[in-house]
């Protein structure tokens, strides 16, 4: 009676990767792939909002036909900053470096990636490159556009092109190391019984992405080196006066930068495959063909680069061939869309937030992909090259595709990453904001481009104003849609309902370990005896993680 036992700390609570060390050093020198994913999450999110800030500046300038908010030179620097940050510091790393880093070892049943220290190095390279990029911005920015086209970038621009180019070089090695790590991990570290045909489609997508990272990124690296050397020593590699050829720069640049588009979209497609299967509670339709279509996109994607150069003066026959192959690369993408919708058929479909993003992805990516076919046709491309039609097309793929997939994936795996559920009602609201805001922003730009508004100008004829105002209004809605998850994700870290190991009733090895997972992922190395997406063997959950109807 006298012995009032002080209730002990829940000592039975197992240590997970988040509670395994709380010092700054335990984070900054970690080799745990899950912690590195969190480091990437924080830094990539910062760059996303920085890039978004520049996007808002662009939209504000375009609210009126006159160039009244900033000078033309400033506008050039603003859209360059937006492009460079979003492409190299957000879209390329976002899904592989955050979700891929976190999930690939879990999904293949490994304790970590094959090279944990190289993984940490890749984050530091990202940070160094990010620091260089910020240094460039603080010292007046760059005005070449993210494409760094010669001869403007090599002879005429008075801005800090070399440092920006070197930032691209360094961040490229960050992505090479991520890709190299994934390929080796997927080849060598799969759990016993986990054959290639049992791998989740997310892993297949990461594998295809990594192939492009390995084969493409070194080419942009040497291209930026040539650019820097030409600027420094006034060589003539891309200068026709000195015997060089500016087209060579475009070829080398797009040899990487077009496949880079697939570096961005393929991982998100992998996310969507997981979401569609889980929330249809059904094995994905045509597993093998979906897996191989990722590889097909990676391979064919290397053969289409010159469709960015139809008006640059390449030979007509080359243009015809590149046009044809560009149509051809649409086939594996279309296969994915067909198979996802076929998976829905007679599935037990539920509408949790991740699934809303998956639906958003399918709709928006289809529009983005189909307008890509418009642009692949030579006649239309000549008409709309360098107009807002192109801008709208790639934003439908990059924002409507990549970001929707990323947000869907973040909601889906948030309970696994943090051990907490996000608030479902707010999440659905923000998904709505994102979808409506996105379409309001970018659909008017299709029309603007088709009727002739060129990209990269800070002023425009007054008859374009209505559509531009709509677009800017949509951007504001979109901004709210992106800020809301920041707030409720942060809120849920402390107040969100505790998530169990498998809150969605999902298939996949990552759901068989605790949420959040222990440092070495699995208490015992799993042995896989089942096919991927064995949903017919899994009891559907009727109260998924709280207020989700099924």
């Amino acid at each position, binding site marked *: 009676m006298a012995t009032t036992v002080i209730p002990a700390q829940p000592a039975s609570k197992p240590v997970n990767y988040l509670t395994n060390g709380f010092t700054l050093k335990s984070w900054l020198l970690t080799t745990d792939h899950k912690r590195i994913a969190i480091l990437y999450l924080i830094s990539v999110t910062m760059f996303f909002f920085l890039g978004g800030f520049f996007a808002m500046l662009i939209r504000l300038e375009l609210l009126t036909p006159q160039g009244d908010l900033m000078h033309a030179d400033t506008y050039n620097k603003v859209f360059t900053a937006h492009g460079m940050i979003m492409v190299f510091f957000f879209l390329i790393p976002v899904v592989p470096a955050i979700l891929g880093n976190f999930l690939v070892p879990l999904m293949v049943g*490994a*304790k*970590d*990636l*094959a*090279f*944990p220290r*190289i993984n940490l190095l890749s984050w530091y390279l990202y940070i160094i490159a990010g620091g260089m990029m910020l240094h460039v911005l603080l010292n007046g920015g760059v005005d070449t556009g993210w494409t760094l086209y010669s001869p403007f970038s090599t002879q005429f621009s008075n801005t800090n092109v070399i440092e920006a180019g070197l930032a691209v070089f360094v961040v490229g090695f960050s992505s*090479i190391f991520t890709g*190299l*790590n994934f*390929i*080796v*991990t997927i*080849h*060598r*570290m799969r759990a016993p019984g986990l054959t290639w045909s049992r791998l989740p489609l997310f892993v297949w997508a990461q594998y295809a992405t990594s192939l492009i990272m*390995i*084969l*493409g*990124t*070194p*080419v942009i*690296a*040497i*291209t930026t*080196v*040539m650019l820097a*050397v030409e600027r420094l*020593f*006034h*060589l*003539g*590699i891309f200068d026709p*006066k*000195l*015997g*060089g*050829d500016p087209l*060579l720069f475009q070829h*080398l640049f797009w040899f990487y930068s077009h496949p880079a588009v697939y570096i961005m979209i393929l991982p998100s497609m992998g996310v969507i495959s997981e979401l569609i299967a889980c929330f249809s509670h059904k094995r994905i339709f045509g597993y093998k063909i979906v897996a191989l279509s990722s590889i097909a996109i990676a391979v064919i994607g290397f053969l289409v680069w010159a469709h960015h150069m139809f008006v640059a003066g390449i030979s007509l026959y080359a243009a015809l061939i590149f046009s044809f192959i560009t149509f051809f690369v649409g086939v594996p993408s279309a296969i994915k869309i067909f198979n996802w919708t076929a998976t829905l058929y007679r599935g037990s479909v539920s509408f949790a937030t991740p699934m809303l993003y998956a639906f958003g992805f399918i709709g928006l990516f289809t529009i983005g992909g189909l307008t890509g076919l418009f642009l692949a046709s030579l006649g239309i491309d000549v008409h709309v090259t360098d107009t807002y039609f192109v801008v709208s097309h790639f934003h439908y793929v990059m924002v409507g595709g990549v970001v929707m997939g990323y947000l869907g994936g973040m909601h889906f795996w948030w309970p696994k990453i943090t051990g907490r559920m996000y608030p479902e009602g707010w999440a659905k609201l923000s998904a709505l904001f994102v979808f409506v805001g996105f379409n309001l922003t970018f659909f008017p730009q299709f029309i603007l481009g088709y009727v002739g508004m060129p990209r990269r100008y800070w002023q425009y004829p007054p008859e374009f104003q209505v559509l531009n105002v709509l677009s800017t209004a949509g951007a504001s809605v979109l901004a709210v849609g992106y800020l809301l998850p920041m707030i409720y994700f942060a809120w849920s870290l402390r107040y969100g309902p505790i998530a169990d190991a498998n809150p969605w009733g999902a298939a996949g090895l990552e759901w068989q370990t605790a949420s959040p997972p222990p440092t*070495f992922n699995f208490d015992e*190395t799993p042995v896989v005896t089942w096919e991927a997406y064995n949903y017919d063997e899994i009891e559907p959950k009727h109260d998924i993680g709280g207020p989700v109807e099924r």
Partner: protein
Amino acid sequence: MSDSHATAVDTADPPQLRHHFADMEQQKNSASLGMWLFLVTEIMFFGGLFCAYLIYRLMHFNAFAAASQQLDIRWGAFNTAVLLISSVTVVLAVRAAQDGSRKQLVAYLIVTVLLGLTFLGVKAIEYKEKFEKHHVPGPTFAFTNTFDDNGKQIPVNPKEAELFYSLYFAMTGMHALHMIIGCGLFSVLAILAWKGHYSPGYYTPIENAGLYWHLVDIIWIYLFPLLYLISRHS
């Protein structure tokens, strides 16, 4: 846990086994695949330069042929021989590591570094010659007309010859940078080998550094004919 997967070369609990691998074999295979993938990125990296060189060689054939004939084929051939011998010593180093003969391993690594430094020294002599002949691209560049074997003058645009030398310096310079990195790498490995870090059960770093060295060697095997030889066929 590693015991269940133990292989012939596996000791009971090898200290080099990193926590996330099941056994040494998996670790070795992973490191090896990782190295091969890195070599692929290197090939793509140099591929950009080779591509630029070949395109401009076709566009400005006369100038490139004339400029190419100004290179000293004897130095190039000598360096090719040096590099080929160094590839042999690397292989012998790997063999020594497999056999566990530490002194031989260190000796072969040091010889490799010395051969690498010889190559770089010769390269420096060649660069100096270019500097003296005003063949370094830039404001001081000058290129006098050349004659073919029949004494006929080859019309050459000096700007195009300058482009040849731009690419010559970019390609051999990037190659030399890789040689310097390789020499540093083998120096570190020699010290570690001397301290007894490697054994027949664990010599992956030697093998992977060897792969890197062979690649740098192979790149030179392509650079030498492209820059020095193919315009001298007559």
